[in-house]
């Protein structure tokens, strides 16, 4: 593992950086309760669509400890706000606030940061006055975990089907690959929506989360199965498998001990590169109101208010920030996958 | 009479990052009009790179450092790329080992031959005449490379190379990928072309006896150096360089029936780590201390040039 990281750093600096960025994003998601200054569903009715609060460090021409200005409500009907330069609030770290559960396990009243008696909306607020920054942190839990879980399930399915198909060949192979072909012949988005239609529209958030994972995996296994089948076919003829067979090892043993390990490096690349697809799938479903439901946050459903609402889009462009996080995650996975491909390819050693 | 090809002191190096490796060193050879010169050696000895230098088609990471290449008296290394375009195909042309991959799979072979002819001339008629010369049927013109056999593909390559009536044809192992009878046909065709058009041929092969039967002159290459350049007739009778001697000794037709196959022990050294001194000293039975210290320069014995301390040490070499 260590040598792998070293090689990754050497082969591709940007991939290495992406790896750290992803670790950072996942850590943020994990610690969302602690980092977020507000609960994801706390509505500040007086501060709807409030622009981002800018943390400042210069007061009266001198560097001071970080602070924010208070927010002056100019016109509540038209959602006009201005910084109140007379009211400054120091940014406090590890400060006390209302008690809440962290990771659903233990209670704590310590927050990473906050702005004294003032408000701090780093990425502004949404239509209900909820802090976008806090919601992004909580939404990250959904958006980031769904990719990994979805890929894992698809991978198991793909490994099973692709492995069986490639190893046994013949009629089994033909039937399974036809099925794969049929699934891949549907436009991804249409199939996703149709599968969603097969389930009741009103489900609890946990149910929806599980449902999305299932839907995405049901679609995603096909391409992985095809990749794995190809790998198995090429490796099957290799000498060490023939040797194992001539020794009288069982099919199961040959598959698990000999074929699968050698496909590992290739599949790692394929898996890393397919994570973005799941993240995008979740975003798309939630964006359209078919995924994670309000008041729960996901990067996709946070974007949904901007659809067909030019007033919000142009008046509150910070509502697009979740989209930037989707982009950041996707590009990091793409860079990482490419880096792994370079490092895992024996021709580059 | 002016020589068709004259290479003197050619040096080519490869760059790999900041490092540089010698690929060809001190190549001296020439071909008279209507003469066939063979270059013989194991793979990796630099035969193809010598040929590519003449075409000025060296891979990107290779470059000529020093030396002169004259084609009909003109120094091609001094030419611009656009001047070279009037040399390639017109003064010197080339055919390759695997015609199947050297023909573009998407175009009819006829159009690929014809495209080498300048506009305005009677291109189609000229192409048809060439097809006749290389003994291909007229309807082959409309066929695609994958529809032809290896021998026919090589004939197409020859037609393509000969269509502008060049002075020199470089044939880089033209028969290696073909079976024996087809290969003989190609060799005969090359001879016919020489007779008909007064062509010179630089024939690259690893087959010593094929070289001797086809060419008038033979150059033996080893690790990027021309170790012996001699008349084909003489080289079999009295090979001078120890490597040539070994090569001839290994020919199957020289064995007594039932004896063991002989090989030159060891292998061609890697270009990246050539030994000091004479590059052949690792495999040479006549090795003396001097061989490990310095590279032998060329020595002229009769009409043969040889690089070996056995025959004295005329020229200095780095």
């Amino acid at each position, binding site marked *: 593992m260590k040598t792998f990281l070293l090689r990754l750093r050497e082969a591709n600096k940007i991939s290495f950086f992406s790896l750290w960025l992803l670790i950072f994003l996942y850590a943020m998601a994990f610690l969302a309760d602690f980092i977020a200054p507000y609960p994801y569903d706390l509505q500040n009715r007086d501060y709807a669509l409030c622009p981002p609060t800018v943390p400042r460090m210069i007061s009266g021409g001198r560097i001071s400890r970080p602070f924010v200005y208070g927010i002056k409500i100019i016109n509540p009907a038209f959602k006009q706000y201005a910084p109140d330069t007379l009211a400054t609030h120091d940014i406090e770290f590890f400060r006390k606030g209302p008690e809440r559960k962290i990771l659903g396990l233990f209670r704590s009243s310590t927050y990473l940061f906050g702005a004294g008696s003032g408000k701090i909306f780093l990425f502004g607020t949404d239509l209900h006055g909820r802090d976008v920054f806090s919601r992004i942190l909580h939404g990250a839990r959904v958006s980031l975990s769904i990719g990994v879980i979805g890929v894992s399930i698809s991978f198991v399915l793909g490994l099973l089907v692709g492995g069986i198909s490639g190893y046994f060949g013949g009629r089994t192979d033909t039937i399974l690959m036809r099925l794969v072909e049929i699934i891949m*012949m549907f436009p991804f988005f*249409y199939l996703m*929506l*149709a599968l969603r239609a097969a389930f009741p529209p009103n489900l609890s958030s946990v149910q929806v989360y599980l449902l999305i994972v299932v839907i995405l995996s049901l679609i995603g296994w096909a391409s992985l199965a095809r990749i794995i089948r190809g790998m198995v076919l090429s490796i099957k003829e290799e000498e060490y498998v023939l040797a194992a067979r001539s020794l009288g090892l069982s099919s199961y043993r040959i598959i698990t001990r000999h074929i699968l390990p050698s496909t590992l490096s290739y599949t790692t690349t394929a898996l890393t590169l397919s994570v973005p697809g799941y993240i995008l799938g979740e975003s798309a479903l939630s964006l359209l109101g*078919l995924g994670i439901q309000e008041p729960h946050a996901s990067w996709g459903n946070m974007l949904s208010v901007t659809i067909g609402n030019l007033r919000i*889009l142009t008046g509150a462009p910070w509502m697009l920030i979740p989209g930037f996080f989707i982009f950041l995650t996707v590009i990091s996975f793409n860079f990482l996958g490419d880096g792994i491909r370079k490092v895992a390819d024996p021709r580059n050693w | 009479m002016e020589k068709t090809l004259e290479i003197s002191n050619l040096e080519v190096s490869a760059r790999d990052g900041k490092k540089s490796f010698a690929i060809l060193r001190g190549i001296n050879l020439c071909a008279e009009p209507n003469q066939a010169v063979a270059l013989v050696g194991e793979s990796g000895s630099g035969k193809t790179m010598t040929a590519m230098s003449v075409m000025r088609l060296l891979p990107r990471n290779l470059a000529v450092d020093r030396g002169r290449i004259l084609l009909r008296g003109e120094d091609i290394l001094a030419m611009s790329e656009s001047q070279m375009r009037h040399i390639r195909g017109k003064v010197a042309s080339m055919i390759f080992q695997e015609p199947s991959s050297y023909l573009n*799979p998407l175009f009819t072979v006829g159009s690929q031959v014809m*495209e080498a002819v300048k506009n305005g001339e009677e291109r189609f008629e000229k192409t048809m005449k060439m097809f006749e010369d290389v003994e291909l049927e007229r309807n082959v013109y409309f066929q695609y490379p994958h529809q032809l056999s290896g021998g026919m593909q090589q004939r197409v390559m020859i037609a393509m190379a000969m269509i502008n009536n060049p002075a020199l044809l470089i044939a880089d192992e033209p028969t290696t990928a073909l079976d024996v009878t087809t290969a003989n046909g190609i060799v005969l065709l090359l001879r016919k072309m020489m007779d008909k058009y007064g062509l010179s041929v630089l024939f690259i092969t690893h087959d010593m006896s094929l070289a001797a039967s086809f060419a008038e002159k033979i150059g033996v290459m080893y690790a990027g150096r021309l170790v012996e350049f001699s008349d084909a007739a003489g080289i079999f009778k009295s090979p001078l360089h120890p490597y040539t001697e070994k090569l001839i000794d290994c020919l199957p037709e020289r064995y007594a029936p039932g004896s063991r196959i002989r090989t030159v022990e060891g292998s061609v050294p890697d270009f990246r780590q050539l030994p000091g001194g004479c590059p052949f000293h690792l495999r040479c039975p006549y090795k003396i201390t001097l061989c490990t210290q310095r590279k032998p320069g060329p020595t002229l014995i009769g009409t043969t040039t040889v690089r070996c301390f056995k025959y004295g040490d005329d020229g200095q070499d780095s």
Partner: protein
Amino acid sequence: MKKYILKRLLQFIPLLLGMTFISFMIIQMAPGDYFTQLSMNPEISPLTIESMRRDFGLDKPAVIQYLYWLKNLARLNLGQSFSYHVPVSFLIGQKLRNTLSLSIFSIFLTWAAAIPLGIFSAVKDGRWQDRTLSLLAYIGISIPSFLTAMLLVFFAARTGAFPVGGTISVFNISATGWEKFADYMKHLLLPGLALALSGIGSLFRLMKNNFLEALGSPYITTARAKGLGEARIYFRHALRNAVNPMITIFGYTLSSVLSGAALVEIVTNWPGMGRLILDAVLSQDLYLVMASLLIGGALLILGNLAADIMIAAADPRVRLR
């Protein structure tokens, strides 16, 4: 050639059957007895229900229903929309035109940009121009098309550079045919651009790699040895060989084009299949969902067939197989 196309056509038939079967099974997964549900819905006339029951065997077991559905498909009867109270085929026909024009327009934009850029990048391989383009391609690949669409809508709304939403402007009723077309194209620009920007990146990378590979091939050495000029070597010998594999993958890229188109349509309010299928899903209009799914699949099959024909036309090795 004809035989080849016929063979490909025949190969698509089991695929199509499989697709319809899977579509049908997905719909059958929907919870509850759907026939009773319909009868209890006061918005749907008893007449519609009666005709649906007759045509689609709604009270029969699933497999029989599937056979009914297939029989109707052969007669191009895709059933009734529950929420619009019109035949599904009527609804789809309208939207399909818009989706097709959006997809084709964006495919055209994608190829028109990706191929020259790919060649340029291959020729400048490793230099700053190539590295800049490759980085941009990475960004293009990673930015979801719906986000591109949102950003473009944001930009359009701020600057008024393009119209947002719909296919025609309001004043348009009295316009001439040509003006109507120009107006339609103007509305198409924003969704088309959003969709194309996401596709250019991956196609560009493919084109660059193919072109580099073609440039390194032996037949390029032959072309140089013949004394051909650079332009002829690039644009006759290398280009044709580099584009061929791209035609092969054209069928595969269609899937992402259609999926992307649906999302972009919804975000930019372009009235196509995307909006239709979304509304159908939201209102549980099952026959409409299924027909949309089927049409999407059929479009992909047609696209693949078109790619097969194009590749056969472009590559003699395929043609004569």
